[in-house]
C-alpha cells in the first residue's frame, strides 16, 4: 500500500502504545516459543521485516540468545498475480539457512484476509520443510478469507472490509503509528 497517497482518517495506535504492544508481544513470544529449539524469525516484506527485526533484537537482549533471521517476499506467490492491476514490485527473499532444521516464526505488520500469510508459508516451504510455522502480527483487522489464525497478535482492531489499515515504522516511514484510511 502506498503510504504517501493514503487519506488518513484516524490514527488508531500511537507511538507509545506501539512500544507497549511490542513489549507485550516479546514476552508472549518468549513464553510460547522459548521451549522450542532452533527458532528462526522471518519477516514478510516490507513492514514485517522491520517488526521482526525489532522483536528479535528485544528477545535477544532479554534472553541472551542469538536467533536466526530472514526475510520473505511474496510477490511470486500471490494468488491474485493475474488479477491485480500490474505485477507487484518484487523484493529479495533472504533465507540463508535450511528451514528443515528450524521452527519458523513468520512476522507481518497487519493480519487481514490471511492470503499474504498463505503465500508466505508456501514461499518458505519452497526452501524446505520446516519443523513448524507460527505466525505473529502487530494488528489483526479481521475479515479472514482463509482458515488461518495468528499465534500472537499485538492488538485486534475492528474495521470495515473497505477500510485501509497502514502501519508506519520509524525505520521505513519516520514515525511509529497505525492509521485508518
Amino acid at each position: 500500500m502506498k503510504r504517501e497517497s493514503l487519506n488518513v482518517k484516524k490514527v488508531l495506535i500511537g507511538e507509545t502504545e506501539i512500544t507497549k504492544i511490542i513489549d507485550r508481544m516479546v514476552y508472549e513470544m518468549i513464553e510460547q516459543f522459548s521451549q522450542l529449539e532452533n527458532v528462526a524469525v522471518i519477516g514478510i516484506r516490507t513492514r514485517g521485516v522491520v517488526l521482526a527485526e525489532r522483536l528479535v533484537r528485544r528477545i535477544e537482549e532479554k534472553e541472551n540468545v542469538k536467533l536466526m533471521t530472514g526475510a520473505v517476499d511474496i510477490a511470486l506467490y500471490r494468488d491474485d498475480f493475474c488479477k491485480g492491476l500490474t505485477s507487484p514490485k518484487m523484493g529479495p527473499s533472504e533465507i540463508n539457512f535450511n528451514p528443515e532444521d528450524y521452527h519458523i516464526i513468520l512476522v507481518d505488520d497487519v493480519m487481514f484476509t490471511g492470503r499474504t500469510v498463505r503465500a508466505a508459508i508456501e514461499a518458505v516451504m519452497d526452501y524446505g520443510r520446516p519443523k513448524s510455522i507460527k505466525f505473529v502480527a502487530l494488528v489483526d483487522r479481521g475479515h479472514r478469507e482463509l482458515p488461518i489464525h495468528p499465534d500472537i497478535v499485538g492488538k485486534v482492531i475492528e474495521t470495515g472490509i473497505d477500510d485501509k489499515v497502514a502501519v508506519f515504522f520509524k525505520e521505513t516511514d519516520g514515525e511509529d503509528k497505525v492509521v485508518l484510511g
Partner: protein
Amino acid sequence: MKHLLGIENLNKDQIMNILETAVHFNELNQRLIKKAPTLKGRTIINFFAEPSTRTRTSFEVAEKRLSADTYNIAVSGSAIQKGETLADTVLNLQAMGPDALVIRHSVSGIPQLLADIMDCSIINAGDGFREHPTQALLDAYTIWQKLGGFEGLKVALIGDIYHSRVARSNIYLLTKMGAHVSIAGPGTMIPKEVEKMGVTVEKLPKYAIQDADVVMMLRVQNERASNLLYPDIREYSRYFMLTPELLKLAKKDALVMHPGPANRGVEIDDVVMDGEQSVILQQVSNGVNVRMAVLYLLLGGSDK
C-alpha cells in the same frame, strides 16, 4: 506493458524496472528448488522460426521456473511447411488460448504484426535485422552488475552491425542509458547513417576499443550472406578479430562480451574468449534472470 517488441519504444525507467526485477530472480535461481508458482496455469508458446539454442532454452528455463506451461514450435515440423501462412498459423495457435507467444523470425517486424492480430502478449526473441530486446537487456544487466551503471561508459561494438539485431537493440538501449557506443566493422557491414542512432563510427577496431569499458563482439553471420560483404574470412579475422593485443587498448579489466554463438578464431580469439575478462557465460546465466523478469512484468495483472 503488454508486449516486448523492441528496445526502441522503451524508456529509461522501463528498462531499469526490468533490470531491477531481474536481480530478485538471482536468489531463486540459486536455490535448491528453482521454481515459483507465479505463472501456474498460464500457457506460453515458443515459436522459433529460425535456429536457436541459447535463446530458446533460456526462455524455456525462465518459463518453467515460473511454473508456466510451455509449448515449442519450430518451422520444420509445423504446418508452415505444408504451405500455411504465418498469419493463419498464429491465429490457429491463438485459438488454443495462449497467454504469451515468444517469437523468433527471419523477417523484421513480424512481432509487431503478431501483436496487431493476436490477443496474447508477444515477446520478440529476435526478428530479422531489427531487434533482439531480451539479448540487449541481458547484456545491459551484465554490464550493470559488473560496472554499476551506464552513464559515461564507452562500449565498443565490433563486427557485422548491418545484419545484427543484437547490435541494433544494444545501441538503442545503451544510448538511452547514457553510455557511449563506438562501432567498427568492414565498411560493407556498417549501415548508412548509423550515426543518427547516436553512435561513433570508427574505421578500425583499435579506435573503437581504445579506453573502452566494454568490448562487445558480434558474430559473422554467414547465413545472412555476411560472406559476400568481406573478401575472405582470413582477411576479416586479421582486421576485426578481438585478440589479446587489441584488448590491451581497452581499459584494464574491460568486459569482453559476445551474444553467441561465437566463431572462435574468426571474430574472437580463443585466448580472449576463455580469458579472465570474458563474461560470455555470465551473459547466458543472466539471460534466465532477465527473461524471468520480462515474463513476470508482462504477464502479471489482468489490465493489459
